[in-house]
């Protein structure tokens, strides 16, 4: 069978428990971001913009919203008859069923899916990172070097290095060591969790790893060390643009607020390749006669009657009269009543804030509202 050169597998099954109430009803990759987007839009758009037309989306934790959002994949041009987007939840076989027990296990359980496309290379992605990357360029370098595995790396500060999976290079510039969150890092090249494997190499490694009872079936902890032990050629692909893991409330907040920096907003959304998303129909935003809106990203369907400063408003947000929203991330379909004060807060999707509510932490910490559909306080 004539195979595909490269297909992508997108890991989207994690709970993202560090995002608290934001992932209460929704998997992390489906969390709203930047007004009208969802986190997974970036990866899916990168795939399509890099000419990768086959993407398996591995789901596990509360996948309903994600399933509905991705649908046929049409919004990203991934409704192609030969490939496209496929949702891949855990499933039962004649030997019984299992949950995905690690990142590598999730890929292992979908060997048949991958084999059906007979790819030369497999691109593994995390659905919870924000960046724009041309995977084709990474694939070109991977092929030129005839590497078994190419790992995208990002230069972090030495102080941050102990929070990441760190790659150490030998004098040929190849990866010789991988350390997960090292206390005393000897390199500051962090793994971005973006891998291109030769499929035959990965396939054999997955089979071997599956039979190892000690393994946690994780790419970082098990598969990469296994390949290093086999003496396979692993090379880094250095990425220099904007990249952010939005795994925690702090980083999620920061990544949103970063967009208010005109240069970054322009780099992410106006220059180069487009970021696609599956948006509902909203009318254009309305700014009222008494409103004041400054330094804000405002999405379609918003109505601002009160004041908004240094904030991001998602699609369909309503800010009523005499309310003030500052330094905040307001997710889609939030309705804010009259006379509210909201400062440095993240308000979850669809929450209705009653008239006169005050949401602001006296110590300036980020407030996250959204355990219930209504909030008064």
């Amino acid at each position: 069978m004539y195979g595909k050169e490269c297909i992508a597998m997108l890991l989207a099954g994690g709970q993202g428990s560090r995002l608290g109430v934001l992932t209460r009803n929704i998997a992390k990759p489906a969390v709203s971001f930047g007004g009208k987007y969802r986190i997974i839009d970036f990866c899916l758009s990168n795939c399509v913009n890099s000419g990768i037309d086959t993407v398996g989306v591995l789901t596990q934790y509360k996948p309903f919203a994600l399933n509905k959002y991705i649908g046929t994949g049409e919004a990203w041009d991934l409704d192609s008859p030969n490939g496209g987007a496929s949702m891949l939840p855990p499933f039962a076989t004649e030997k019984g069923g299992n949950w995905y027990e690690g990142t590598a296990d999730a890929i292992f359980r979908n060997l048949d899916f991958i084999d059906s496309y007979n790819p030369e290379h497999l691109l593994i992605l995390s659905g919870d990172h924000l960046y724009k990357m041309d995977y084709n360029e990474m694939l070109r370098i991977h092929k030129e070097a005839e590497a078994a595995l190419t790992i995208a790396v990002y230069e972090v500060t030495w102080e941050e290095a102990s929070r990441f999976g760190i790659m150490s290079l030998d004098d040929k510039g190849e990866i010789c060591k991988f350390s997960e969150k090292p206390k005393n890092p000897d390199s500051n090249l962090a793994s971005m969790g973006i891998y291109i494997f030769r499929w035959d190499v990965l396939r054999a490694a997955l089979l071997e790893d599956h039979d190892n009872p000690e393994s946690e079936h994780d790419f970082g902890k098990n598969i990469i060390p296994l390949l290093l032990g086999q003496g396979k050629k692993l090379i880094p692909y250095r990425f220099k643009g904007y990249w952010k893991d939005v795994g925690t409330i702090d980083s999620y907040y920061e990544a949103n607020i970063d967009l208010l920096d005109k240069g970054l907003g322009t780099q992410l959304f106006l220059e180069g390749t487009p970021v696609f998303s599956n948006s509902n129909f909203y009318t254009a935003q309305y700014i009222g006669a008494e409103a004041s809106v400054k330094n804000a990203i405002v999405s379609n369907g918003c109505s601002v009657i009160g004041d908004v400063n240094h904030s991001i408003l998602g699609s369909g947000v309503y800010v009523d009269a005499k309310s003030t929203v500052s330094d905040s991330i307001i997710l889609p379909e939030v309705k804010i009543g009259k006379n509210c004060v909201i400062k440095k807060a993240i308000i979850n999707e669809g929450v209705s804030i009653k008239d006169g509510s005050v949401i602001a932490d006296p110590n300036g910490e980020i407030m996250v509202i959204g355990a219930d559909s209504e909030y008064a306080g």
Partner: protein
Amino acid sequence: MSKTIGLITANYVSDEFNISAEERALAAVPFGGRYRLIDFPLSNMANSGINTVGLIVPFNNRSLIEHVGTGKAWGFGRKTHSLFMLPGTVYGKRGDKSKFLLKDIIANLRFFNYDKPDYVLITGSNRIYTMDYRPLIAQHEASGCKITKVFKGDKFMDCFVINTSLINDLVKWFSNVDFLGITSIISEYLPNENVGRYEYVGYEHSINNLKDYYETNCDLLKEEVNAMLFHSPCGTIATNIQDRCPTFIAPTAEIKNSIIAAGCLIEGTVENSVIFRSSHVAENASVKNSVLMQHANIESGAAVNYFVCDKRVTVTSGVAVSGSKESPYFAKKGMTI
């Protein structure tokens, strides 16, 4: 169950409206920040459960066809929900009486008999309103009339339901008379035919000239009009999705009572205006009482008031342009002022 198909005529232009005459048919004129006029009849039909719709396309049909595509944004372009592009027989026709030409029907007769519909709902494409057609069709069916016209007060809204059998009769009887409109045939030749009347209540505005265009856009700034058009229980007005990023409002911006579409960068002053997708109002620029179609670029120090511009217009730094409420200044597509 009876079956109704839809027909939208879009092959006419307006003499008075130079926005459309040279460039595109009225139906394809951009409106309300992110819409085009055709979005309203198409959405109304789709939201009323009409699954088969024919669109009589204008001569300059590029922008309309590009916008509508297969009709997917409105739920058409599927196995059981189809939008048909139909050729018109006459292009550039003008005025209300000739909006619904029998010639156009004859040229596309197969469309009207393909699904054997009982009724055909026919509308023009230069009127802004959001309406559920189902009560109209129900009234028509219950009344036994052969045709039911929609009015708001004394105003005929370029919209009617007609029995397919009457269409077939008209074709037989009048096929060799040129340039006859269906509505004039009924009133002039068939005064005794059973003609019903359906009362529409709600917002509507037809767009025939620049003043209409300006007024209708400004009407969207009224909360009750906006609610009737865009938050009606009969459904959403859909449009072609373009994946623009949300609008960025800079720290220097001053915005009052305005509608702003996605993908804009607002750094200056905007009051009582409607600004379409991907426009830029620079710092120290001022936009008041204006309608800017997509990709407008108002440079620093420029000021526009009672100004309507077509797509991709630039007002250069330091230039002031002003019209009046009755006669807004109009800038053609691609102009630099």
